[in-house]
């Protein structure tokens, strides 16, 4: 457990001390009550993998899991997250092993600038927990609140489908040709 960190240096509105459980670890932080989970994760817990994109719930860059469900941390008060399990991209890998989603994203080139990627990975993780064998449309629908400006989404959709197959134990890695240039067959629609 970390030392309480005080997020806001100057005097301000009412402040709370809360313990956030993030990626299975407790973080005790002091913050003004009107600060969002996004801000406190980044500034209080030092977990900067979750990104600011629009701050109005319109882009999905700040998606994290709250009790396993994807939510936009820019529209959640940090105070409201206390007592719930928060998962961020920093908790996705197990030790040095990439989560199958991370591995599939790397294998298929599903990340470009990587800024929207943490939010997409977390949203996809929740999808696969709920639906181990999603169709392309189901993946598109689940990710439709996460804007990406670089990739055009197609490789993301393929990577999520691929990770699903790995998680089901059907595949270890994509076939060599999948990352050797020849286009992958489209995910079943």
């Amino acid at each position, binding site marked *: 457990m970390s030392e309480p960190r005080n997020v806001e240096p100057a005097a301000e509105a009412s402040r709370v001390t809360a313990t956030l459980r993030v990626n299975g670890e407790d973080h005790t932080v002091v913050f003004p009550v009107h*600060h969002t989970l996004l801000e406190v994760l980044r500034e209080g817990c030092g977990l900067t993998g979750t990104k600011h994109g629009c*701050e*109005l*719930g319109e882009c999905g860059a700040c998606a994290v899991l709250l009790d396993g469900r994807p939510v936009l941390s820019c*529209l959640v008060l940090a105070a409201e997250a206390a007592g719930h399990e928060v998962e961020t991209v920093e908790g996705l890998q197990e030790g040095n092993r990439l989560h199958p989603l991370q591995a599939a994203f790397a294998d298929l080139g599903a990340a470009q600038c990587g800024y929207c990627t943490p939010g997409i990975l977390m949203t996809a993780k929740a999808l696969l927990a709920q639906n181990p064998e999603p169709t392309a449309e189901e993946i598109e*629908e*689940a990710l*439709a*609140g996460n804007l990406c400006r670089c990739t055009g989404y197609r490789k993301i959709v393929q990577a999520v489908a691929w990770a699903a197959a790995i998680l089901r134990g059907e595949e270890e890695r994509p076939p060599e040709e999948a990352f050797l240039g020849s286009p992958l067959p489209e995910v079943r629609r």
Partner: protein
Amino acid sequence: MLRLPPFDFRAPRRLAEAAAILAGEGDGARVVAGGTDLWPNMKRRHQHATTVVSLMGIPELAAVDDGGGELRLGATATLAQVAASDAVRRRYPALACAVRSISSPPLRNMGTLGGNLCLDTRCTYYNQTEPWRRAIDFCMKEAGTVCWVAPSSPRCWAHAASDAAPMLCALGARVLLRAHDGERVVPLEELYRDDGIDYLNKRREEILCAVLLPAEAAVEHCAGSFWKLRRRGAIDFAVVSAAAAAWFDAGGAVERLRLVLGAVASRPLRVVAAEELLAGRRLDEEAVAEAARLARKAATPMDNTDFQAQWRGLMVERYAAAALRQAAGLEPGIRPPHHPL
């Protein structure tokens, strides 16, 4: 940075406690549930609060109770829970469809049914950045005196943006409101007023607690349908939405029907003329076309979104027709790319 202003935050565990706080705090108090409407509005300085009372810690408000008769949906059940609820999908599939069309998946995980029903009204002038609103002088919905949509108008023309509301109105839902001094149950339709500013018939301290769906609106008695026009496959508010619920007699004629439009007035707009026209008639192509024309006539879409009023008017007709056709078991007649299932 778009940041929240400071406020006192209260998270009661019991409804009575929430009601007491609201009664005691005065005009500066607001309730929040999922926060997907209030927080952005406060970040953009559209709405203000000195005290925010969260309802999310009150277990009884989140429950979905299906006793087989009336279905009771707790106001803080999330939109995702409502859409996924077995009772909703089985008994009121059109409602599941309407709720699935709201915003994006993460926002449906956060946003609640009650929050969606109380959604602030929207308008091209109002829903702008703060500097812009200041530059043209605030409109009457904010701190000013003029409606920029219709400057000579004495009223505000901001439009209702909820997708659940037209569907629930069509299905004849009622809502339970509770305050420190008592509770009441009113038809959802009566919760709304035709005013962009004061759009809810609800005292500030009343809490929307639950939505009650009548057994007679379940799928075995009633054909419901919902169509929503939006540009993208997600995120967008409706350009127009149309919800229909029809009860047929043994001969296949319309016994009773409700047609309710979203996003074309300051409240969910019931098209009474069309309902009267269709009562006792067969819902065939001709009847549908006639009713859809009446829907277009009833709707007065202003240029208060980024779409031209004339196109929106035409879309009202098309989407009303699609909803009616679907309720009648006919092909919807339009092929937009993103019909929400």
